[in-house]
């Protein structure tokens, strides 16, 4: 799993820093984006294996960005995990309906997030 690439999209710089640190500490190559445009720019440079997607973003939000990526054959099989502070009833359904592969609420558990990501990557390898 080491060396696999993760794109973290979050409009909150502090949270971005936290997750980026955690992922690097777990051996991932990390790209970050504060908004959807930056995420698309990052995707042009490197194709990640996983995207950790915040939902509330300025401009194009995380749900819309997910829909676009899942509709595009070039990005369609990237694992997208919603990581959001929207934790009310129905928010998970919205995320999954938009095409997210998983849904994790903030505050995140730094001890289990790496495992969750690893599980998704392992599952993807089995499928392919």
């Amino acid at each position: 799993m080491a060396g696999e690439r993760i794109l973290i999209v979050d409009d909150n710089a502090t949270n971005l820093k936290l997750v980026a640190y955690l992922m690097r500490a777990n051996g991932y190559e990390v790209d970050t984006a504060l908004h959807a445009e930056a995420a698309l720019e990052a995707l042009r440079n490197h194709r990640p294996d996983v995207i950790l997607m915040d939902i509330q973003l300025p401009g194009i939000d995380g749900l819309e960005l997910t829909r676009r990526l899942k509709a595009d054959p070039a990005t369609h099989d990237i694992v997208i995990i919603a990581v959001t502070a929207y934790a009310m009833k129905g928010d998970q359904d919205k995320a999954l309906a938009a095409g997210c592969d998983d849904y994790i609420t903030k505050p995140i558990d730094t001890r289990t997030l790496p495992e969750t990501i690893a599980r998704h990557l392992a599952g993807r390898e089995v499928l392919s």
Partner: protein
Amino acid sequence: MRAQPIVTRGARTGSLVQREPFADSPLQLLVAEDSEDDFEILLRELRKGGYAVSAERVKSTGELEDALGRAWDLLISDWSMPGFGGLQVLETVAARGLDLACIIVSGTPGEEAAVEALRAGALDFLSKDKPRRIVPAVQRALREAADRRARVHVERELRFSEARYRTGFELAPEPLLAYDLDRRVILDANAKATGLFQCSRDDLRSADLHALSPPRQPDGRMSSEAAAHYIGRALTGESPAFSWMFQAHGEMIPTETRIINLATVGRNLAQINISDLRERLRADEIRRRSAELETQNRRIQEASRLKSEFLANMSHELRTPLNAILGFAELLHDGQVDPASPTHKEFLGDILISGRHLLQLINDVLDLAKVEAGKLEFRPEPVEVPRLVGEVIAILRTSAAQKQIRMETQLDPSVAELTVDPARLKQVAYNYLSNALKFTPQGGSVTLRVKADGEHRFRLEVQDTGIGIAPDDLGRLFVEFQQLEAGAAKRHQGTGLGLALTRRLVEAQGGSVGVRSTVGGGSTFHACLPRHVIAMSRTRTPVVFPPSQIGARTVLVVEDDVRDQAQLVAALGDAGYAVEIASTGAEAIAHWRAREYDAATIDLLLPDMSGLELLAALQSEATNRRTPIIVVTVVPDARLVAGFPVHDILHKPIDRESLLASLARAGVLTLQPEKA
């Protein structure tokens, strides 16, 4: 010469055409006469006089009775006949109720007989000796008969018309009054009118309109004058219609009333038609209320939706800083960061910043909730604007200096002294200023102005040279959690509640907020408030927890946190103290002034003022000068309250034993209540 018809009616009442000689149809003549000769003479005379005659002679009562079954214009009867007489003829005609002109002729005329005949209904009494008088007598009789018939007819018509009118009046579906415009009195009232005024017809008769009305009409006019006005108009021939308020047994009766001048009657009589509007108004009222309920329902649904949205946003906004706090804390705690590294310190800093952000968010939310619940008290007091503004500027001076932003103030001397809640005005100024500093780039400037706004209001304005706001976004500015997108710099800079809170604080004091802005040209936020705010929120009576026994010592608990309040009340109440609670500094001061307490506990973190401000305020009061104050705080540092007459400092969460021990040391002892 043609006959002039006076009245022409149907066959029911018989022909009423006045018979003149040469009339088209022959004169229908019935003659009671025993002498054939006399009959012939009579006919000859009449024909000579120009009458076409269709005559029939009867010689007995039986024949007469038969003949009277048919229609006749005239009856001429001999006075004396064998077994039959003129008087008998007249009586027979009268007995059958016939309106038939009768003339008596007699071969032996006498005054007595003539009188008798005329009394019995004859129109004339002639002597057979003077046949030339026949024609004029017939003419006269026919004329009289026609006149009489016409008179009867008119009378009948009148009676009929009156009956019809009476029935129409009486049975009319609306209240009607017959009214004498000259004497200004009611002459009559129909059943609906007596029902409307709930009194008898006699009570209504001879009353005037204003006696049935309240002293004044809803538009303020005296009822007597207003009624006189409309009656005057009716007298000029108009039939005025107008809104009129009647009154019956204390109940107001709104009506549409119309005075119809019955000029045709010859006297100045009028009919007053009253249309009772109560039912209609009631129906309108029901419609209005149901519409109101619908609107209210929609509003409640909208409020409920907003509340859910608010909760979702709240959850989101609370989780965001918590994510950083817990995440970094876990990393540090789990040893994932080298404690000696700068990263370690950086992450601690992130935890602190996020923690403070969270605290600010919670404070703002609590304030908002209080304003919304009407529980935020405003304590207006005389305020010197330059001093207050100076204090706010002082707080923000450092952050302004860091961004090299020039802060200026322009204070209009005419509004240097106001009566406002200083804490709340500071909060408004602070929110606007800190907002302006956030969105103004390095080297810009922020100006705070206080100026007059009309005679009774003032305007606090904060102008910046910041990025400005797009017109479409202006409406969202003062709405909770509606932070505008301001690029990557957006997050972490505010709770999304500051402006919403500002708006609510200002509006709750009878003011208004607003903003003018152009993209790239900076923004000017303002708040307009009364120069002298009246304490509008209801004065809350202190929450008192009755002592378990008479003569208990009373402790004032100044504490805004509900759970801490409950803990203190439980601890003190169980020990037999009476407790009064103040949730804000302002409330505490009000209670402090109102009575003497045996002791007070004070939380240093209050929503409206710092604990130190409160201590200073309490110290300056004339009441409770010897009351021991126990400060209850999360940071028990004696240096915090140095210089204030504080009896003790206790640590939160409150330890029941140390609280009671502290009170005991202060000499505020109470007997233990009897255990139930």
